[in-house]
């Protein structure tokens, strides 16, 4: 490349930079600076305000480590489950040749459901699948089936995951629909005409094309569950040791209140999000060679 060409490329990039400036300005003002205060706090002693790494040292307590572990576990499970089921639903609505009203109904419903969380959601599930829930009782009274005898319990890991799916699935639906819209009908036709079964088409064509979007959406779901608190708090409040509850206990609670340790936990969460983001970028780079 000659110098002028390089300069031109630079100028083009600079032009685009101006285009993304509002975003970064906004992010700095309303996200990064406020968060920066937090990060600074994570390095401060709660009493003296002096610089310290002790807060991070405290993260290594077994209870905090296990909270991180359980949070990651719950988030990953609900993200994968949500991604899978949400994708299936979105697929059915977008490409399933269903009546036209289904899709707008589903997407608008998903809009609400994806943010339906916290106490109301926990309560809805308790009223449905709790020991005295609607479904539990119906199963018992009508079918003579005791759900809880099977070892099922809403107030456990799987119960929490099942409940999380209530907002994870719709979130997936919403985020992945546009990607499904982007599948061109010619690709499917070309695959069909070459004898591919729908499965083969998905395995080799649609799947790889959608993969980056699906992965991105799954990452979003992961972070969504990872940062969630209200639902877990209301549902399995004191039995499941998830990290957000510890974090909130430190910065909000009536008892503990060591905001600086809370901030350190938050920084830990950011680090985990960053790591999952890196993993995603790496996976995507491997699967996206065909993109401009």
């Amino acid at each position, binding site marked *: 490349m000659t110098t002028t060409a390089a300069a031109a490329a630079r100028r083009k990039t600079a032009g685009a930079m101006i285009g993304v400036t509002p975003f970064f300005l906004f992010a700095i003002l309303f996200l990064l600076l406020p968060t920066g205060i937090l990060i600074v706090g994570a390095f401060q002693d709660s009493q003296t305000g002096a610089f310290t790494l002790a807060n991070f040292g405290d993260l290594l307590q077994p*209870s905090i480590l*296990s909270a991180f*572990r*359980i949070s990651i*576990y*719950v988030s990953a499970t609900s993200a994968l489950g949500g991604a899978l089921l949400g994708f299936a639903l979105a697929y059915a609505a977008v490409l399933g040749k269903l009546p036209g009203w289904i899709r707008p109904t589903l997407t608008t419903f998903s809009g609400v459901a994806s943010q339906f969380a916290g*106490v109301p959601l*926990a*309560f809805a599930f*308790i*009223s449905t699948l*709790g*020991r*005295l*829930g609607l479904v539990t009782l119906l199963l018992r009274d009508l079918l003579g089936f005791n759900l809880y005898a099977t070892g099922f319990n809403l*107030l*456990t*890991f799987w119960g929490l995951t099942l409940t999380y799916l209530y907002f994870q699935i719709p979130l997936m639906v919403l985020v992945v629909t546009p990607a499904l819209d982007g599948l061109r009908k010619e690709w499917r036709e070309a695959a069909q005409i070459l004898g591919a079964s729908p499965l083969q088409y998905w395995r080799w064509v649609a799947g790889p094309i959608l993969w980056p979007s699906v992965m991105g959406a799954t990452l979003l779901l992961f972070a969504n569950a990872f940062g969630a608190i209200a639902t877990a*708090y*209301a*549902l*399995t*409040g*004191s*039995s*499941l*040791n998830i990290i957000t*509850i*510890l974090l*909130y*206990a*430190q*910065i*909000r*609670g*009536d*008892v*503990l*209140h060591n*905001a600086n340790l809370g901030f350190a936990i938050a920084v830990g969460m950011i680090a985990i999000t960053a790591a999952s983001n890196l993993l995603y970028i790496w996976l995507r780079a491997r699967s996206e060679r065909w993109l401009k």
Partner: protein
Amino acid sequence: QSAELIAAAKAEGELTTIALPHDWCGYGALIEGFKSKYGLKVNELNPDAGSGDEIEAIKANKDNKGPQAPDVIDVGLSFGPSAKADGLIQPYKVATWDSIPDSAKDADGYWYGDYYGVLAFEVNADIVKDAPKDWADLLKPEFANAVALAGDPRASNQAIQAVYAAGLEGAADAKAAAEAGLKFFAELNKAGNFVPVIGKAASLAQGATPVIIRWDYNALADRDTLAGNPNVEVVVPKTGVVAGVYVQAISAYAPHPNAAKLWMEYLYSDEGQLGWLKGYCHPIRFNDLAKNGKIPQELLDKLPPAEAYANAKFPTLEEQGILKETITKGWDAAVGADVK
């Protein structure tokens, strides 16, 4: 109250509170009463906030004179001294200062106890025919899937005190009591009686948590709210009665310091104290009021019998520290569900 203070408060025009749920200790009526009495506006910030939030809100609003900055806070006992040490609150002594027991106030007037209650069993009497009378009753098979706390013992003062209360009987000191309490809950959990949901009026009514361990004043307020649907019984356990004190303070950075002072005067006046009592909270001046016969009998009748309070244990700050340490750390091992 001095006319001067009222005038100064009116000049400020408003008061900003935080973390005052309307169903809590009659705060709803108190706020209304304050507004109508003095014609001030009251901004109510996050009623759902915890004590930690309240402290952080003061810190965050140090330089803010807007309606986001709380003037007054109502926090767990242990937060009083620490907030004072951090310089987040300012001293003020209300007119009735002397009638506040010394054990429940900062000598310099930075913080002062506001009300207390004891931990009780809130029971859905439609489901539970035979209400538990003491902690040990909770372990009975008839309370399978029935007993819940009103908070998470890793985060909520109330829940910590509940664990403590469960182990209090016969324990040598706070640490032993805390450990016994943890053991109790571990057993409760093993017996399948413990429901690890945050107990609320709704879950009580719905039947998911027919027995909730919580402050008696919350339980009694619930009883009124639910108005017989279902019937609620509030039982103070025979043994292991623990009282919890919250404290009141004015933010050092209060944008409306005079309104804040006026609010304190209002709360600590006989009228304010009775307002708390109407919300089933024992105001800190309860004994003073009772001594002077200022409590209407019908109010007293609605409270749990006085003898239930007779041997109530008020944990000291020091004891609270031990509880917090022992219970928050031990909880997961005692009842936490582990994920393989």
